[in-house]
């Protein structure tokens, strides 16, 4: 455990000192409020500090970027939120954004430009892969060497933005045994939370999507189901609990795994 308390730099404070960080770390709503995903945010922060990355967060100035509203059909609300967010970004002259959420990643990268917001947007899987490649993060090969990990592709990272390799490269750095589900990469099955499903009950059917996906993940016999998306994490964690497997099988974000691999 770290003895020194990490102080998370705030964009407003840095700006007041006349400093500008290289990256904005966009925490996202799940990263800020979801109890399980807060752990992922903290793990990612530890990695940023470990690697000596120049970053800051918006803190209470952050607000929803409108993605769930847009996917639920409320374009009006999305555009109002987007305009507010872009205004904040303008104030701090933000150019590079890193985020753990594939939904936030997608909307900043692909959709804000239609409204006049142009940024370099990096998903944390890509960012961590880069840190690993540069040798700034080196996981202890002993920690995971008796574990097997299966990775679940988030739709908005994978199919949505063709990023299949970065999270797998991060996992490879742990030197664990890696397994693939039958439906992986571009054939990956959704966890069931996308398109604003996260915020509503599913339509009537004969099964929950997250159960279908969890069964597939459990069938691989992996010790760890790794994800790289807050909503996938909720769905798979729930699915594993539903299947009464939470003792044997753990669900972690790739940032948590990497932090563990460093003993952070």
């Amino acid at each position, binding site marked *: 455990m770290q003895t020194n*308390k990490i102080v*998370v730099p705030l964009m407003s404070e840095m700006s007041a000192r006349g400093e500008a960080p290289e990256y904005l770390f966009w*925490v996202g*709503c799940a*990263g*800020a*409020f979801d109890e399980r995903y*807060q752990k992922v945010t*903290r793990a990612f*922060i*530890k990695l940023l500090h470990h690697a000596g990355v120049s970053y800051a967060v918006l*803190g*209470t100035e*952050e*607000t929803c970027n*409108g993605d*769930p*509203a847009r*996917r*639920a*059909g*409320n*374009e*009006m*609300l999305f*555009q*109002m*939120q987007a*305009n507010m967010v872009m205004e904040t970004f303008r104030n701090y002259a933000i150019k590079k954004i890193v985020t753990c959420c594939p939904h936030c990643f*997608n909307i900043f990268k*692909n959709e804000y430009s*239609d*409204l006049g917001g142009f940024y370099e947007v990096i998903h944390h899987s890509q960012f961590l892969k880069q840190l690993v490649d540069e040798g700034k993060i080196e996981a202890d090969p002993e920690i995971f060497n008796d574990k097997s990990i299966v990775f679940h592709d988030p*739709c908005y990272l994978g*199919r*949505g*933005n*063709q990023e299949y390799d970065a999270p797998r490269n991060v996992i490879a750095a742990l030197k664990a045994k890696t397994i693939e589900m039958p439906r992986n990469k*571009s*054939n990956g*099955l*959704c966890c*069931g939370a*996308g*398109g*604003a*499903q*996260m*915020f*509503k*009950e*599913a*339509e*009537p*059917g*004969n*099964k929950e*999507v997250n*159960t*279908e996906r969890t069964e597939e993940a459990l069938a691989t016999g992996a010790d760890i189901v790794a994800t790289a998306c807050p909503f996938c994490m909720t769905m798979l964690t729930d699915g594993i609990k539903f299947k009464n497997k939470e003792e044997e099988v753990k669900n972690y974000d790739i940032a948590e795994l990497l932090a563990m691999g460093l003993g952070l």
Partner: protein
Amino acid sequence: MTRQIAFIIALLITLGIFTYTISRLVSYFRITKAFPVGQWGKRVAVMLRVAIGQTKIFRFPFIGLVHALVFWGFMVITLGSIEMVIDGVFGLDRSMSSTGWFYDFVMASGDIMAYVIIIAMLIFLFRRLFMTIRRFKGIEMQLKSKLDAIIALCIIFMLMLSLAGINLTYIQLHPTNYSGVFPISALLVPQLFTLGTQPFMLHEVSWWTHILLIFLFANILPYSKHFHVFTSVPNVFLSRLEPLGYLPNMENVMAEVKLMMNPETAFAPPAEEVPAVPARFGVKDVEDVTWKNYLDALACTECGRCTSVCPANITGKLLSPRKIFVDLRARMKEKGPGLSKDSNYDDGKALLRDYITPEELWACTTCNACAQECPININHPTLILDMRRYLVMEEAAAPPALNTMFTNIENNGAPWQFPAEDRMKWAESL
């Protein structure tokens, strides 16, 4: 001479009916909304890869290969059909044979592919008739869809059988001096024609059967799911080039939001010149879709790969991505004739609710598995989202839980009910 006249009459009838059909479709396209296209170089690359190279169809390896063989076969065989039309009109025989090695190549590959396609059709028919394949089922797969498939497969089977007949009898008629190369037919002739049949009659029957079936097929296609024979290559060429995760912007909302967020205009009375019918937000009916949505619907061959990978469909929900486009095409057929004559035409029905229910639309996770799988790059989630946009912005008809989510975003800037000042709480235990 009689033969030539008969041919020209048959050709003119074919072209006449075809022109009528296409002109009707063009009038339907006129009803639809804009869809910007550019980046032509990139489009050529996508077309070569996905359409000509059949890359996405190979995602189902075995049956994908069979389809690809049929497609590539059609490409060379069509060249032969063009020659037949020239021969028919001008009363010639093998008019393109003077092109030498090119002719040999076209004839040889066409001959081989004819037999390959005969086998492929038997495989396809066997799968359709005797095997239970999940993606061939579904609420949208009515009798017409099933018949469409069987009829098209049977016509193609007959087309290839008659083509083989032409090649076989042609060799038999000119055993030493025929033009072109026919590897398989040349091998089969000695086996098949030892008893001395009537090659000339057989050749004529095969030739006319083949060409008349082509004429018939060309005019059946636009009314069946097999229209993809014509539309799928253009559809791939015109497909969306953005990443699948991208959702197109709504410019009309942008204008409203700008007015609202500008303090000078936010509370001003509405402008004098309000258009009589304000532009509708989202898609309710066929007049709201883009021409690309409609082309997608015309190009859809109802293969069901989209539905077979849809997480909602897999888990028993009502949504079937294929149905969205089957419904769009059917609704256009119903409303298009009236709407193309009178832009205010209203039959009291709509694509939304009379064809596609909100329950289907709300089951979509926008995971893009359907769009990823579609062999001809149809984009289903965008149309589903456009219908959600109509439901939410025109009817405020979102599921209650989503309305709560909207309120949370409006009030505290997060989809959940957490106060904005708690946004840094996660950092306290670092």
